[in-house]
């Protein structure tokens, strides 16, 4: 005998973006018999002078997909919440010379907070969106977040700040699938978004020129570009435009015995100096440990006061073995098994135990042995 769970009294409010992942999420939940309600979130007002915003076509796609699946769909506006809780953080971090991660903040504050709140107002038992992550509940009822099955699409890095309470309310119906499989399901179901291009970049900037976007909100202060030895190499357009470890844009070479390309190796925010150095693996880029703050744990608590796990310091980077030493309730030092290149303050450090994403925090300082790298 096959047991069929009756989900018809379980309401899932699906955040539908107009993309293929959330489309298939809604479809699969509907096929599993849930009471599915689609809600489109409008988080950013980019209405142009003709009154057209990019959300228009996305919402039109939500309408097509929801009608095809046979679920009601609605819209909600979180422009103010996004502006206050994500965009202000984004600007503040850039002003401080750090490199923020708005997607982590958006998940924490908007998609799994403002949206979850709203979904609960609509009697949601769960929310879902279409993230590549998986959850499993243990015998004690604790939800564990696991990496998405598609290693190339795994989004746990961006979900690392989610709390146990948030995870208890979330479903990840496509987390066990590979992306091509998701597209195939969409195609077979005749969903309008089956072949829609994935969105890229930070959601509110989209495909626009990042530098131009940032310059409309923060005044750029050009300054000197120097080596650590104090040699002036030129000028920079504003510290906020540069990320630790990126190519500096300087021409090849500079002196005859070293023709390696130049990279951004540090920033001095007070003196408005951008430090550059030669070589992808320039020693000034190689860190041995970091300080992190704002640590949050997906199961509710760290696994101990000192423990060895793996970590990622940016999205899609291979894991590195680390030893975490808690230094306060939500602060820690993280020591790497081997030196790591271009640790970037403001970015997330995310911990894993095998497939499980344990949580993470924000990188504040990076060190090479006892010396703090001049990153900010």
């Amino acid at each position: 005998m096959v047991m069929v769970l009756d989900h018809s009294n379980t309401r899932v409010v699906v955040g539908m973006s107009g993309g293929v992942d959330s489309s298939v999420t809604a479809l699969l939940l509907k096929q599993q018999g849930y009471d599915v309600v689609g809600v489109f979130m409008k988080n950013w007002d980019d209405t142009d002078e003709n009154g057209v915003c990019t959300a228009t076509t996305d919402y039109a796609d939500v309408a097509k997909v929801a009608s095809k699946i046979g679920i009601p769909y609605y819209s909600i506006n979180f422009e103010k919440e996004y502006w206050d809780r994500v965009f202000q953080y984004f600007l503040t971090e850039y002003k401080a010379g750090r490199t923020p991660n708005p997607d982590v903040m958006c998940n924490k504050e908007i998609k799994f907070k403002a949206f979850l709140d709203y979904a609960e107002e609509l009697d949601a038992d769960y929310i879902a969106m279409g993230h590549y992550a998986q959850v499993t509940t243990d015998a004690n009822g604790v939800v564990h977040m696991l990496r998405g099955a598609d290693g190339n699409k795994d989004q746990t890095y961006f979900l690392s700040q989610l709390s146990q309470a948030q995870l208890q309310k979330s479903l990840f119906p496509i987390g066990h699938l590979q992306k091509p499989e998701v597209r195939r399901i969409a195609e077979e179901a005749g969903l309008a978004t089956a072949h829609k291009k994935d969105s890229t970049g930070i959601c509110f900037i989209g495909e626009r020129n990042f530098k131009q976007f940032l310059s409309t909100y923060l005044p750029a202060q050009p300054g000197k570009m120097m080596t650590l030895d104090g040699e002036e190499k030129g000028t920079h357009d504003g510290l906020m435009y540069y990320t630790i470890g990126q190519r500096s844009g300087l021409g090849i070479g500079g002196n005859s015995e070293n023709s390696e390309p130049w990279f951004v190796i540090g920033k001095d925010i007070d003196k408005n100096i951008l430090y550059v150095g030669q070589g992808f693996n320039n020693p000034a880029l190689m860190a041995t440990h970091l300080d992190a703050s704002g640590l949050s744990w997906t199961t509710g608590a760290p696994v101990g006061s000192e423990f060895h796990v793996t970590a990622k310091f940016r999205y899609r980077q291979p894991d590195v073995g680390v030893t975490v030493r808690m230094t306060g309730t939500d602060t820690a030092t993280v020591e790497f098994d081997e030196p790591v290149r271009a640790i970037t303050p403001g970015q997330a450090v995310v911990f894993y135990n095998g497939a499980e994403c344990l949580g993470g925090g924000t990188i504040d300082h990076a060190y090479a042995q006892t010396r703090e790298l001049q990153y900010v």
Partner: protein
Amino acid sequence: MKHIYLDNAATTPMAPAVIDAMTAQMQADFGNASSTHWFGRQAHTVLDLARTTLAASINAKPEQIVITSGATEANNTAIMQTAHARASLGKHIITTAIEHLSVLKPLAALEQEGFRVTYLPVNDAGEISLADFDAALDDDTILVTMMMGNNEVGSVMPIQAVGERLRKHQAWFHTDATQAYGLLAIDVAALGVDLLSVSAHKLNGPKGVGFLYRGDAVTIAPLLRGGEQETKRRAGTENIPAIAGFAAAVDLVTPAEKAARQAKYFGFKQQIIDALTAANVEFAVNGTVKPGNLNHVFNLWLPGCSTYAVQTNLDLAGFAVSGGSACTAGSLEPSHVLTAMYGADSPRVSESIRVSFGATTTSADIAAFASALIKIVTKLRKH
């Protein structure tokens, strides 16, 4: 799930008599009313009869009725063409802050062309003051366009008083009677209006048809140019089935029926107020509740409950009400009417819903709605 429709200010279901009239028309005659053969004459007869009905409904002459695709076209025609015809006499237009977008957008376009528009403010009842009107009127004024009754809060404008004031003034007087037409007795001669817009689908007629009344003094060029239909005032082959349906809908709203509906809808408002009060649910009416308003429109402020949450919850429970107009991305635009009445910072702008009644609404619908609303508001306030 049973779906109950309480958004009749947006549109209404077609009355059976309307469907019958249209079906008969579609099955019997298909001729082009401009054709000079038998088929054309058949269609032309329907058109003539309908026009007579429409004219009689506002005490106008049949030749003063120009049939349009609806009130949006009628409003655009009245405003744009009057401004262009009379630009040599003046560049000033008076309107109110709470007109429909099909009035406000043409006016915005005219402002771009150099016309000067005065938007009369409204008080918290959604009413203008005649003193403001008198202060705005000057020798340069060529047009006054003022809705007869508002589509969001149901307030009515002093059309007769404004008409009196304009009898000896050069300005033409246009009124958008879209919401009022099915509920108020209208006599264009008594009101002193030169132009009046109406749409069929607000009174159980078909979508896509309406009319513009043009007084004899009005000489404006057609907005749509082409054939010589509507005695050269509106080109385009007449949509005879829709026009027949329109006339059938108008036949249903006799003066007695209008009065009966006004009384019935006023009772519905009271029923909702009583239910919410009895349940101790905090609320306030946007605008006022009084018998002379357009009683089919009821706008409620539910403090602490977002329009999104209330409207979506109601829809999921099977009750269709309006949360305001949405942009192309589905986001609600702040109501310019509530903003004009209470200010952009008022929570009423983001915590209100519009309930609107129609010919098919029953007291049982209202009771079911009130109890659903009480449940939802109570839940949202606990959240």
